[in-house]
């Protein structure tokens, strides 16, 4: 019964029970806006060389492409755009549209008849196969296919379009003459308009297929390369819904909607969109008989593969594996090696989450090279390098591998992979504790012009590799005590990757780590403690570690110990060697702080062995520092001193400023301790040297505002000066110490027990 009001229309576009969006193969059709653009083109052809200056013509030419590709805009906007590039042309376009709209149907007919003239003649104004030529021909074709009623509708639409434009311009100018009657009528009109507007906010008019395709590809590439420039998730979804409302068969929109949902981490909608996309795609695959049955099966395989990828992204590894198995099975059945290759890579990604076997990966790389899939091959090499780096392979091999894959990238201009490769080198150098090299690589990536910049006019893309490189840069600067520079980098990161974008987590973690370190240096443990929660949210292992560090600093040894033991077991299980060593160091520190340095020794030796095995030089030298300190406590300062001589070089070359300070401080302590047995003359000499070293250490500490350490150094210096009999210097140091001591809370840890 309700169907009285339902439309009972016969749909001519339906064959085989399926509504085809595009049964005539027309991708574009004539709209009033297009007519306006046609008029503009026509005018440009007419005016010839002389009338428009070269500069204006260039601006016009630049304007044309967006006009041809973009969505329809209102007439007044169009005028404005033309006016900006060439005012005189805008005027003549306006006049011609006015004539056409205010004339009769015949004028429009005539206009289209004359359009094809631009191709004729010995030297045609427009080349048939140029962009403009194609557009003109499309329009002429689309126009000639219109039936009478459609032509009439187009003409009324044109009139409407023109009147709307006029109204706008008139309103803009001035409109103050109102008598009462007119005011009333206007009121009524406005009332109508209000209701119109609130509807039209939701639908800004349909896009033609071409415009829609352009819109989708543009947004998709922006999502990939520079998320901030793309529409916000909500507005993009609105556009897509709008698009789908007018053309439910436009499958690609579903895929974009899937990507968009991924951005906001919405499992349900993204699964829904993805499956919907493939359901639609399966039809088009079957329709285009070019591949025959092949095309249809193909989309099935990739559907399963994409589902696997989706589950993997949301961390549902078991589901992902099931989907992947399905994809592999179908691909195997149809002998699709390329698809299998993709599956293999994903299999590795999934396997990585659990074990670190790289047999799969090696196999994948070999196969990918064999089937000529450079992208997949070098992506495989990169994962392999990453994996091997964690497994402690030597740097030269890794760099060799990266260099080889770089050759591939440059050959195939895979700019994305080049970026990743450089970012990876930065990370590897940092892992091995070579801050200078890391710094250099990061700078290289940042100052390099992307290959794609040639195409899209964007200077740099906001991809993950840039975020990674910038984060490293910030941390490196912070390590060297250049906090202003670090925060500058972070500010830049915040601008380029706003907090809700995909890669924002990277810099958030980095930012909090830096803040944490500063708070710890400053001795503001409560502040550091408050940062721990934030870090834990982004990276649980790091968070637990930092929590333990804070507890240790606050002298809550047993809690810290418990946490560290748990963390140690977990990290050993997941083979996070870097963290294992850090934890071991913390444990050792815990031991000698609780006055049992003998137990600390085996722990430290274990850490040393591990860091040597995995070539983590930075951690190795820190371990040596600890070891030397333990020896100092145990009363063998000579041994400690010789050990320190071994480690001090890499620390001074690549270490963080804090470590440099600690190393120098320790050297001085050892010197003093070993000088006890010397004869007075030599002793004085050694003590002088120690004072020098302490000065150096003080400078380093000052760089990172380690007030607590400075206090200790000053105290020590004062004692030395006292021994050396330099009263003036002693008093100066003592005063400094007193100042600092009043400023800082006293934690009750004796001086000697600090590294």
């Amino acid at each position, binding site marked *: *019964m309700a169907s009285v009001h339902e*439309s009972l229309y016969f749909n001519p576009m339906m064959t085989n029970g399926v509504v085809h969006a595009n049964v005539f193969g027309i991708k574009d059709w004539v709209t009033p806006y297009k007519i306006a653009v046609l008029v503009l083109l026509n005018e440009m052809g007419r005016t010839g060389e002389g009338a428009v200056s070269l500069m204006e013509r260039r601006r016009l030419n630049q304007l044309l492409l967006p006009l041809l590709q973009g969505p329809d805009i209102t007439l007044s906007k169009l005028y404005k755009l033309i006016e900006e590039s060439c005012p005189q042309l805008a005027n003549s376009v306006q006049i011609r549209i006015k004539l056409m709209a205010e004339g009769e149907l015949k004028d429009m007919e005539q206009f289209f008849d004359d359009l094809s003239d631009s191709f004729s003649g010995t030297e045609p104004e427009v080349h048939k196969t140029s962009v403009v030529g194609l557009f003109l021909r499309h329009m002429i074709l689309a126009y000639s296919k219109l039936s009478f009623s*459609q032509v009439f509708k187009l003409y009324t639409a044109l009139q409407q379009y023109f009147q709307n434009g006029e109204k706008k311009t008139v309103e803009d100018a001035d409109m103050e003459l109102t008598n009462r009657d007119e005011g009333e009528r206007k009121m009524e009109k406005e009332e109508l308009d209000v*209701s119109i507007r609130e509807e039209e906010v939701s639908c800004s008019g349909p896009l033609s297929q071409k415009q829609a395709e352009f819109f989708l590809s543009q947004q998709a590439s922006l999502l990939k390369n520079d998320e901030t420039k793309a529409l916000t998730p909500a507005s993009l979804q609105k556009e897509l819904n709008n698009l789908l*409302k007018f*053309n439910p068969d436009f499958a690609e929109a579903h895929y974009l909607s899937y990507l968009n949902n991924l951005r906001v981490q919405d499992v349900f909608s993204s699964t829904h969109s993805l499956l919907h996309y493939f359901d*639609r795609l399966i039809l088009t695959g079957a329709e285009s008989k070019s591949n025959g049955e092949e095309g249809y099966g193909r989309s*099935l395989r990739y559907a399963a593969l994409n589902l696997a990828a989706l589950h993997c992204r949301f961390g549902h590894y078991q589901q992902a594996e099931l*989907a992947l198995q399905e994809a592999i099975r179908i691909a195997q059945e149809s002998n699709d090696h390329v698809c299998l290759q993709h599956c293999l890579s994903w299999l590795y990604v999934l396997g990585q989450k659990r074990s670190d076997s790289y047999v799969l990966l090696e196999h994948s790389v070999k196969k990918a090279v064999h089937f000529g899939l450079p992208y997949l091959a070098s992506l495989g090499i990169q994962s392999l390098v990453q994996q091997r780096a964690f497994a402690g392979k030597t740097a030269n091999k890794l760099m060799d591998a990266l260099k080889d894959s770089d050759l591939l990238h440059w050959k195939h201009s895979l700019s994305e992979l080049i970026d990743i490769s450089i970012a990876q080198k930065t990370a590897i150098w940092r892992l091995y504790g070579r801050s200078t090299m890391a710094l250099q690589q990061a700078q290289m990536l940042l100052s390099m012009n992307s290959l794609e910049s040639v195409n899209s006019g964007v200077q740099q893309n906001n991809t993950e590799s840039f975020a990674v490189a910038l984060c490293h840069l910030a941390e490196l600067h912070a390590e060297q005590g250049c906090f202003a520079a670090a925060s500058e980098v972070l500010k830049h990161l915040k601008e380029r990757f706003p907090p809700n974008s995909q890669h924002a987590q990277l810099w958030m973690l980095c930012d909090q780590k830096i803040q944490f370190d500063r708070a710890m240096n400053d001795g503001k443990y409560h502040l550091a403690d408050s940062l721990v929660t934030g870090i834990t949210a982004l990276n649980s292992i790091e968070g637990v570690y930092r929590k333990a560090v804070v507890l240790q600093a606050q002298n809550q040894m047993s809690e810290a110990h418990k946490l560290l033991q748990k963390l140690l077991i977990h990290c050993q299980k997941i083979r996070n060697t870097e963290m294992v060593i850090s934890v071991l160091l913390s444990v050792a520190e815990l031991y000698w702080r609780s006055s049992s340095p003998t137990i600390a020794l085996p722990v430290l030796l274990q850490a040393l062995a591990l860091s040597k095995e995995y070539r983590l030089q930075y951690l190795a030298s820190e371990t040596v520092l600890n070891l030397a300190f333990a020896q100092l406590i145990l009363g063998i300062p000579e041994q400690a001193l010789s050990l320190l001589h071994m480690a001090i070089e890499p620390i001074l070359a690549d270490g963080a400023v804090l470590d440099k300070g600690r190393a120098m401080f320790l050297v001085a302590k050892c010197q003093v301790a070993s000088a006890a047995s010397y004869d007075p003359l030599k002793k004085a000499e050694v003590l002088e040297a120690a004072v020098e070293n302490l000065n150096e250490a003080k400078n380093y500490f000052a760089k990172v505002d380690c007030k607590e350490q400075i206090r200790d150094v000053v105290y020590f210096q004062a004692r030395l000066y006292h021994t050396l009999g330099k009263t003036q210097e002693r008093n100066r140091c003592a005063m400094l110490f007193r100042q600092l001591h009043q400023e800082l809370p006293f934690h009750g840890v004796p001086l000697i027990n600090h590294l």
Partner: protein
Amino acid sequence: MPGLSTSSGFSNLREIKKQLLLIAGLTRERGLLHSSKWSAELAFSLPALPLAELQPPPPITEEDAQDMDAYTLAKAYFDVKEYDRAAHFLHGCNSKKAYFLYMYSRYLSGEKKKDDETVDSLGPLEKGQVKNEALRELRVELSKKHQARELDGFGLYLYGVVLRKLDLVKEAIDVFVEATHVLPLHWGAWLELCNLITDKEMLKFLSLPDTWMKEFFLAHIYTELQLIEEALQKYQNLIDVGFSKSSYIVSQIAVAYHNIRDIDKALSIFNELRKQDPYRIENMDTFSNLLYVRSMKSELSYLAHNLCEIDKYRVETCCVIGNYYSLRSQHEKAALYFQRALKLNPRYLGAWTLMGHEYMEMKNTSAAIQAYRHAIEVNKRDYRAWYGLGQTYEILKMPFYCLYYYRRAHQLRPNDSRMLVALGECYEKLNQLVEAKKCYWRAYAVGDVEKMALVKLAKLHEQLTESEQAAQCYIKYIQDIYSCGEIVEHLEESTAFRYLAQYYFKCKLWDEASTCAQKCCAFNDTREEGKALLRQILQLRNQGETPSTEMPAPFFLPASLSANNTPTRRVSPLNLSSVTP
């Protein structure tokens, strides 16, 4: 208006009949044909009134008299579908009747133009954009009148329809509710309300007038919302009150039975209905579905012929013919007829799904997927389409992929065992046996239609060497079959007995084992095994153990249902794998 206030009970059927006759006349005068038809049908089912009780037509007011000429002319134009012309002559009329007809003509003219335009819109993408241009103006005018409280029940109804067409659902619901308060007798307003209410919660918060019409509305909406028990209860009440002859109610009951898959009842009611009202076309598609399910070829063919003679350009007719061809395995022709149904009404949901089924039969999976997708687009809550999509992907051997679709179907029909069994099969294929077990058990617990869940569950247990549970399941299965008393050939019965025989044999329960083995001998495929087992049992018994003298009653007969083994039909929440998007 006089005589239009309605009582809440059914005590005075004569009064109700009078009211129905009155409203039938009123709606007819305003061109609301379907409401008029409904009221007249219902009035017809009540006993006739004596002459003395017949109501005189309502008195003609001054305003009506003024507009009489214009109205008469316009109504004639309206009847021949010249809406613009009708509206032109009604312009400026003041009486409510003329005003309604004026607005309604304008609305229908807009609708008609919209349909015509759709055929030659400028481009394919503009197709969705074709709008009824008149709607906006109608809305503005009607809202002014509405604010001034000048609209009568019919006017409110039209205002609601306009709002609904503009997708302003919330406002539309409010207006329709108001319309039912002002003029409770107008069935059209109730029906529109039915289409706008999507769940039980919404229904709860409506403040509806307390009249006997509300009962009809509630029964109807319960059917729509698949709350079949409640719906049947309401309809039964209506019949008890005295509407037993109403073909509307009878057909609704039949549809309700169809929805809960009580096929026999539904069939008998439909047969009855066809005897009463042989030229009825409405709901005959549902009837044909039932005939199809029962493979009643000759009846279906008769129905198809009959309907074709009545009116072959009706959606229902096309659907019946499609079903007919489908039953004859002429799937191309069936698909053709479903397509025709869709051409007649593209929003006719059932045809999309049925067409999907046909394409599946033709092994044209891609077309099937398309058809199902269209069905989902028209109505997201169509569980058959989701289920069909799942089946399609299952045929394409993508068990993981189809899980999503089955889950959707399951969400929509949580208590339908077919989806659960399908889900279980998929999990089984994926080797997720724990999940599969959950599905099968749940399918059994919600009342298994196909009686396969238990066997599958048993086989799973067998696979996992959980012999105890497997045996339990087989026992329950056999009990189930015997208690049903169906003589339908159950293929798995022999399997069950064979397993049980071996199970008892292993447990050294010779009596039970031998009973089962004897049962095995009754089936062809297990006869040899049964005999062999019997021999073995005999041997073992003779070797040492004294046979028990008393033969216990066969354990599988319902009489001996061991109390502790009966499955409690308590349904625990189905907690499938962590991710169920």
